[in-house]
Structure formats: C-alpha cells, structure tokens
C-alpha cells in the first residue's frame, strides 16, 4: 500500500481507478480520462495534488540560500506573492527536480516540489541550508487542489467571502495570496487558467465536496498528463531527470545566467554545455499518421537517433503528440522525423510546444 492523501476515501467513493504514482495511491481517472480532459479545456476540473510537497524556507538568509540553490533567480521576484518556476540542479547540472517557489516575504519563501522526489529534495535542501541558519519545513499540514479551466477561478472564488473572492480574482498570473486559511495561487499544469489552492488537511474534504457541488469535474492523473503534454510542460522523471540538463530539456528560459556573478549549483557545468553548443534538444512532435507515440520510442532523424520522452493521444488535437529529445541539428521547427512504433516508421513533424493553450490549438494540423 502506498501513501494516501486526505482525499483518498473520496476518490474511492467516486469510483476512481487508483494507481501507484511515486509511492502514492492516486486516482488515474474517475471513469473517462478523455471527458476529464475536455472538462478542463472547456469548463472546470479539479485534481488532488496533495502528494506534492510544500516546503517553507524561512530565515533572514532565505533569499541568499535560494539564489545559490536554484538555476532560476529568485531575485526576479519583486512583489510578495509572485511565483517562479525553476530547476534545482546537481553540480553537474543534472536536474534533481523542477519546482515552483513563491516569494511570501523577504524572510519566507514557499517551495512546491514533486511527489516522487520529495524526500531526496528535502535532504538536499537541508544539507545545503545548514550554513544559512534557516528553517526548511515540510508542510505536511497542508493539502493541495488544482482547480483548472476557463470556469475554474470563478467557481472557486464563489466559495470565498466577497473581499477574499475579489482578492483571488484580482491575482495576476503566477501570483498567490494567503486568503483566510487558504493559500490561493493562479498557477497550474494544464495550459488553462485556474488556481492551485493549499488548504489545511482537515478542511480539504469539505472544499472538494463544495467544488463537486459546483460541477467542478474530478480529474485524475491521466487527464493531468494529457493536459500538461498539450500545454508543452515537462514531467519530471519522463522528460528530464538527473541524467539530463535544462538546456537539453527545453528549459533554457528557466536558467538565469545573468547576473554573471550569481554562483548557483550547476552553473559551471551549464555554462560549459552552453558554450559547447550542439548536444540534444527537447522538441515537440506531431505525428502525421494514425498511431500513438509513447515514451522510449526511437526517433529517427537526419542527424541521428533521438528518443520520445512523453507521448500520448491528444484529446484536443485528436492526433498523437510527443516531447522528444533529438540531436540539436534535427531540432528545427518544421523538420520531419520518423518514430519507431512497433517496427513501423510513421512520420512526425517537429513543432514548437505548447500544442494547446487556453483551449486553442497552437500548431498547424
């Protein structure tokens, strides 16, 4: 038996198919994964993401610590509540995890990391925090829901007091705020608008029921995966891991090389990779034929072989889409490659993710 979130019994009561995910028993769907996917693109869906790990980093030197720890630069966060996406790297620039960090106040940052890496991340952070005199606290008292879709924000806000609802609806993209007992952030992993809400574990069941009452569709990890892949977002452990670096994972935009004097873990290795050029790139693929790309399939290109890192059927496009790591020389948008699907070699076109954002298809079919 795996670890369970506070909503486990509710998932089972709704008829969810439960699977192991990073040591957690999580719902993969509640019936139809495709219906759940469309609910998020068209109206509102919710995901139990309480398996993810909320870590509060507090102390006078919190900012200094995080500027050393992360590849992105939290000095970019000027306003309280603002969030930043970053990789946490090893010295050789292998990716330990991807995470979101919220700037709450100059002595308090909140970091949200993946479920499968939580224990390793905590150990890594605590070891490096030792000389900074910080508190690195795992917030096991908080559960988290992602409420996503064009109708998501208004439905969640209807559960708040009028002043808190105004504050929530006033949040700019990638901002969060503490509203009563809830920390509400305008973030997500679906390519749609929405909120991620952190609430005390003993109150999350009630919130879940209230959202069900507002016709917010419960969605499992299956829909979460197709939504994030359509949105062109990486999944840690599939599209990147300790053996891959940000520059070969489509994450150049998350590495802050400037200012040049900021020493962060992995910087020297990243600079060497950047200066060497070449290497591999993570690209989007759109299959031209009828079949479905899956992770680990071989990608045949004019510059050598690559690998599908995530592949699926896209419910929005009704076509197969993928992320794939290919030789840099074959990474140009519009290029043709072949994907080895059970010995056949159907053609795929290299495209620039995202495939879908805010309900709209962004690639030429």
């Amino acid at each position: 038996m795996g670890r369970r979130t506070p909503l486990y019994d509710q998932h089972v009561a709704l008829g969810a198919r439960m699977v192991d995910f990073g040591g957690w028993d999580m719902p993969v769907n509640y019936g139809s994964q495709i219906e759940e996917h469309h609910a998020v693109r068209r109206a509102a869906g919710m995901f139990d993401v309480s398996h993810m790990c909320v870590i509060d980093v507090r102390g006078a030197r919190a900012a200094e610590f995080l500027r050393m720890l992360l590849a992105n630069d939290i000095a970019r966060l000027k306003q309280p509540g603002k969030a930043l996406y970053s990789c946490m790297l090893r010295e050789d620039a292998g990716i330990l995890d991807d995470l979101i960090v919220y700037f709450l106040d100059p002595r308090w940052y909140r970091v949200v990391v993946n479920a499968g890496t939580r224990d390793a991340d905590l150990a890594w952070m605590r070891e490096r925090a030792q000389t900074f005199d910080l508190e690195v606290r795992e917030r096991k008292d908080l559960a988290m829901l992602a409420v996503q879709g064009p109708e998501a924000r208004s439905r969640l806000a209807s559960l708040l007091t009028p002043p808190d609802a105004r504050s929530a609806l006033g949040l700019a993209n990638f901002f969060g705020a503490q509203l009563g007992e809830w920390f509400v952030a305008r973030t997500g992993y679906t390519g749609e608008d929405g909120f991620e809400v952190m609430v005390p574990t003993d109150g999350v069941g009630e919130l879940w029921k209230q959202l069900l009452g507002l016709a917010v569709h419960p969605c499992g990890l299956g829909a979460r995966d197709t939504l994030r892949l359509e949105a062109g977002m990486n999944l840690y452990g599939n599209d990147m891991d300790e053996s891959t670096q940000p520059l070969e994972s489509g994450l150049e935009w998350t590495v802050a090389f400037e200012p040049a004097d900021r020493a962060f873990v992995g910087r020297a290795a990243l600079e060497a990779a950047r200066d060497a050029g070449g290497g591999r790139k993570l690209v989007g693929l759109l299959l031209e034929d009828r079949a479905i790309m899956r992770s680990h399939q071989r990608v045949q290109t004019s510059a050598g072989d690559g690998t599908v890192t995530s592949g699926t059927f896209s419910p929005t496009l009704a076509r197969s889409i993928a992320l794939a790591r290919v030789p840099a020389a074959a990474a140009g948008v519009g290029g043709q490659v072949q994907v080895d699907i059970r010995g056949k070699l159907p053609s795929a076109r290299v495209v620039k993710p995202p495939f879908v954002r805010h309900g709209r298809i962004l690639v030429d079919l």
Partner: protein
Amino acid sequence: MSNVPTDRKYARSHEWAREEADGTVQVGISDHAQQALGDLVFVEVPEVGRQLQQGDACAVVESVKAASDVYAPVAGTVVAVNEALSQSPELVNQDPYKAGWIMRLKPSAPLAGADLLEAADYATLAEAG
C-alpha cells in the same frame, strides 16, 4: 461489474471468441478488458490473410495511457477486420461484444477444442483481478 455474455468463450488474456453461423470465429476484447484499459483512441488490426497461431499478438489496442496487445484466442487465418475501428476506436469501449469486434478468423481447428474459458469461469477470473 463487467458484462460477460454466455454465447461465446474467453481467453485468459481477456479476448472473446464467438463461432458464427458460417464457421468463422469473431474476436474482440472483453468488457472487463476495455474497462481496465480506459478510453481507447487507436486500434491496430491485423492484415487480412495473416495466419495466426493461438496466442499470437495480432492487434494492438491503445488507450490514452498505454498500448496493449491482443492475442489470437484460436489459431486461424484472418478473413475480415473491423474497418470501423480506424475512425471510431471508442466502439470497443461502447460495445465490446458487438460493434467493437476486432477481427474474424477462419479457424484451423474446431473452437470446441481450443483452450478457452466458459463465460462463468471467465467472469470469476475477471472478478479476481
């Protein structure tokens, strides 16, 4: 609770086989199997004329999440495939025992002799997991 019609036999790998009036055998996957796979989005059917041994992987059903092989429940030659599945793979989910059939075989031996389960025994197996 999945549906297990008694007018056909079942393989332990979750295919069904039903003898038709003309002596051919129609093949598909069980209701239990389609439920476990979830929404199907692609079905790869075998080529007509292909000779199959019992247990050969001969078709692929893909859900959003994963691809699964379909195994020949009896030996024989493929005489027809369900062309409708190329445009509507969801037929397997909606109607696994009729409109969602996958292929028809001309069996190389009588169905009665094949190592297949009766509906009641298959229902017990499906129930167990």
